[in-house]
Each structure stands twice: as C-alpha cells, then as structure tokens.
C-alpha cells in the first residue's frame, strides 16, 4: 500500500470518525488513567468494563440503546463501589473483586436470555472503531470535554487524596464527594470507550499510556503530558497499522501502547 492510498483511506468518512473518536477518548482515558494508575485502581476499571456486559445485555433485552444501558449500569456500579468501600472494613480490592464476579456473572446470564445469537457480541468484547457513527463521535467528544474539565478542576485534590485521605480532610476537601465523582466519571468513560476497544481491552486504553509515562516522567506535569502524547501516538499508529496489515483496529492500538510500555522499561528513570 502506498502513502497516497493510505491518505485516501484516512480521507474516508469511517476512518475520519474512527480517528476523531479514538483521539478524543484516548486522550480522556490517558488523563484519567494517570489517576487510576497512581491510585492502584486498574482492577476497578476492569470491573466496570466487565460489568458493562450486563448493562449491554439489559439494553438488548429491553430494546433500548445498549450504550445508554451500559452507561447507566456502569455508573450504578461506580456508585455501589464507593458506597460499599466507605461502609465496610474490607479492602477496596476485595470489594471490587466481589463486584467484578457478580457483574460479569449477571452479564453472562442476561446474554444467555437473549432469544437469538447476537452478532454484536464480538464487537462488544473487542470493540469496532471502524463502525462508529457521527453520533458516537459526538458522544466521545462530549465525554472527553467533560472528563478533561473535571480533571483540570479536581486534579490537585485528587492528587492530594492519592497521597493520603487524611491530608484531604485536614485541608478541607470533601474526599467522599470527590471519590464518588471520580468513580462515576471513570465508569462513564469506560462505558463509552467500550465501543472503540471493547470490554476486554478498555483497561489497556486507560492504563497503558499512564504506565508508559510513569516509567519516563520525573514530575506530575510530565506524567500527564507524556500519557496523552502516548495515547495520540498509539491511536494514529494503531489505526495505520490496522489498515496496512488488515488487522482489528482496537487490539492494534492497544498493542502499540504495550510496545511503548516495553520500550519505556529501557528508558526507566
């Protein structure tokens, strides 16, 4: 394939939609992923993603938009996680493990109740960035703007909370409200990202750019910028490689990030 052919392919509407949505959600996920990584919440993001299966199945059963159903269900899971965490003596890791098992089991059972085989199951699991509509792109753009504004406004508080919940308390920050907001925003971003990379790989979209950046960055500012840059590079390179070698786009984007992670280990501070 020549460069001209590649450029012509990128000029096609479905590729433009894929690139726009991928860049938008990728950057929002990378920014959010910085805090998820620093707070050791990778398992939580995986739990939200897998629980989304139940939301999607519910949407298909009730004949409502699977994306809308997944968003509502994921937000519910996010709220439940913080509620149980705050009212229980068991660790967050265990709370998340319980919700992960329950959410995924419910999803599989609800899927089994669907009357016929649903072809969209494969794209739910692995995403299908090339089939996005302009509405999907708009949703991705809106979520990105929302996430970036939220994080720009709360990043100092979130970072202080990452160090110590006690510090947020003595500095007069409402840590409980902040925690709810953060878990809900994360759930929302994951629910919307599923259409791009799927349930199985969405955690990679959140974690990998931040993990690459963490290996290289010296300061927090560098960490955020490097994570965003890594996400942009992975999206563009991943989409290009998927066109060149006829590979599934979502997994290729994730593999590019994973390769970046491998290389970053050599550049580790």
């Amino acid at each position, binding site marked *: 394939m020549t460069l001209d052919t590649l450029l012509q392919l990128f000029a096609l509407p479905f590729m433009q939609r894929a690139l726009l949505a991928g860049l938008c959600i990728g950057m929002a996920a990378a920014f959010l992923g910085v805090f998820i990584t*620093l707070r050791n919440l990778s398992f939580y993001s995986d739990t939200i993603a897998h629980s989304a299966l139940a939301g999607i199945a519910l949407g298909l059963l009730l004949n409502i938009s699977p994306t809308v159903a997944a968003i509502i269900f994921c937000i519910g899971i996010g709220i439940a996680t913080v509620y149980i965490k705050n009212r229980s003596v068991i660790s967050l890791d265990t709370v998340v493990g319980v919700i992960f098992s329950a959410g995924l089991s419910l999803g599989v059972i609800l899927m089994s109740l669907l009357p016929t085989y649903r072809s969209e199951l494969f794209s739910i699991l692995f995403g299908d960035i090339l089939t996005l509509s302009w509405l999907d792109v708009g949703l991705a753009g809106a979520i990105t703007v929302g996430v970036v504004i939220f*994080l*720009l*406004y709360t*990043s*100092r*508080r979130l*970072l*202080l909370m990452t*160090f*110590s919940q*006690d*510090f*947020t*308390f*003595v*500095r*007069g*920050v409402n840590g409980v409200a902040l925690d709810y907001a953060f878990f809900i925003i994360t759930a929302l971003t994951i629910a919307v990202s599923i259409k791009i990379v799927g349930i199985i790989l969405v955690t990679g979209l959140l974690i990998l750019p931040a993990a690459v*950046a*963490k290996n290289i*960055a*010296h*300061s*927090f*500012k*560098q*960490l955020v910028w490097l994570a965003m840059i890594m996400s942009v590079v992975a999206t563009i390179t991943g989409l290009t490689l998927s066109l060149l070698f006829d590979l599934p786009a979502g997994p290729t984007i994730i593999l590019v990030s994973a390769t970046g992670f491998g290389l970053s280990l050599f550049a580790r*501070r």
Partner: protein
Amino acid sequence: MHGDLIHADDLSLNFGDVTVLDKVGFVIPQGSFVSILGPNGAGKTQLLRIMIGLLNPTSGDITRHFDIKAVGYVPQRLNVDPTFPITVEEFLQLYLQPRGWWVWQKLPKLDDIFAVSHLLKHRIGQLSGGQLQRVLLAGVLSTKPKVLFLDEFSSGIDPHGQAEMYHHLHKLNEKHGISIIMVSHDIDVTAQYADEVLCLNKQLICTGRPQDVFNQQNFEKMYGIPLTKVNEHHHDA
C-alpha cells in the same frame, strides 16, 4: 490561655472485641504544647486521630474549638510509592493550595529552617524517611496552622535535626500561641518542651504538667515497669 481547644468526655474506641481506648476524658487549653505519652499499642495515634476528627469514637463526646482548615497534621509515616513521579515542589504546591484549577502557582518562599529548599526538584519517592518528614512539616507550617497535630513526626530524623525542629516548634508555641499536640515516645523531649502530658495506656493514666506527673507510680502504671527501666529502654532505642 484563652479557653478550651478540645474537651473530651469518656472517649472509648473499640475495633470489634479489641478495646483501643477506654473512657478517656481530658481538657486541652488553647495555646498548649501537649505530649501524648504511652507504650506501643496504648491508643495514642487513634486518640490523636479522634482529636483531629479523622476517626469517630465508639462512644463518648468530644468538642473541638478549632476550624479544620486551621489544622496542620504530620502523620507518623506516609507510604509513598517510590516510583510516584511527583516532585517535592509539586507536592508542596498542591498541599498549600489543594483547590482550584490545574494551573500550578509558584511556590511561596519557604522558611528553610528544615533544610528542604535543595530538595524541591527531587522526586518525593527518592527522599529518605527523615527528609520526607522535614518536607511534610515544612509544608504543614507553610499553611500557617493554628493547631498542630504531630504523630511521632521526628522518627527518622537525625538528633541534630530533631533538636532544631523541637526548638522551632517551641518558639511557634511560645511566641505565636500555636497549639501543639504531639504523640511521642520521647520522655526527655516531653519533659523539656511540653507543658501538659496525657499519659495513656488505653485508659488515661495521668494528666498534668510533666514535672507533676512524671513519677515512679505513673510510669509503672503506664509502662508496667519502673521509671529507671523506661529510661534505659528509651536510651537504648
């Protein structure tokens, strides 16, 4: 002294079947320098956390006459991931101004009594335990607190650094009327700087001026061994 800072009645704390604090009552006046003394597992840290409002007692009443925004708190230790990419300067910026947008304001000039200026560009995970405690105390004092809660804050700091810190804290208490409540194992420091002691071993063993309460009977009740042995243990440690 201008009234009470903290008034506690019959504070008890239980974790399941384990009694951490048993009907502890005391009054701390404004402007005091208080040391909470006691053996390991006496409930000192938990009592300090209850005083701040970080923890609720299982039963009992506590009245606090201070604004939480006027509180400075240095914990016993801060578990920082050594790979956490944040500089000392960034940490101090966000501690001083946790609210507001992403914009990182310039750090005001620090009173470098604790020798942290040369550490500003270091990653916080690279600091030693003593350096981290210095940074925390410098950050906390930069917020101009009216009440300071310190939980064995000087652990890991060299003796010369400790002496400087206690001297500085004493000055803040004497000249600026800042109330200081600290958890300590150090009987000498307590005797030298504190004007009030809470002797704790789940129950309140004694309360009063160090010169009034430091006696054989109270030390035996608190540590279960005579005063001379306590001093030997303390100096060996």
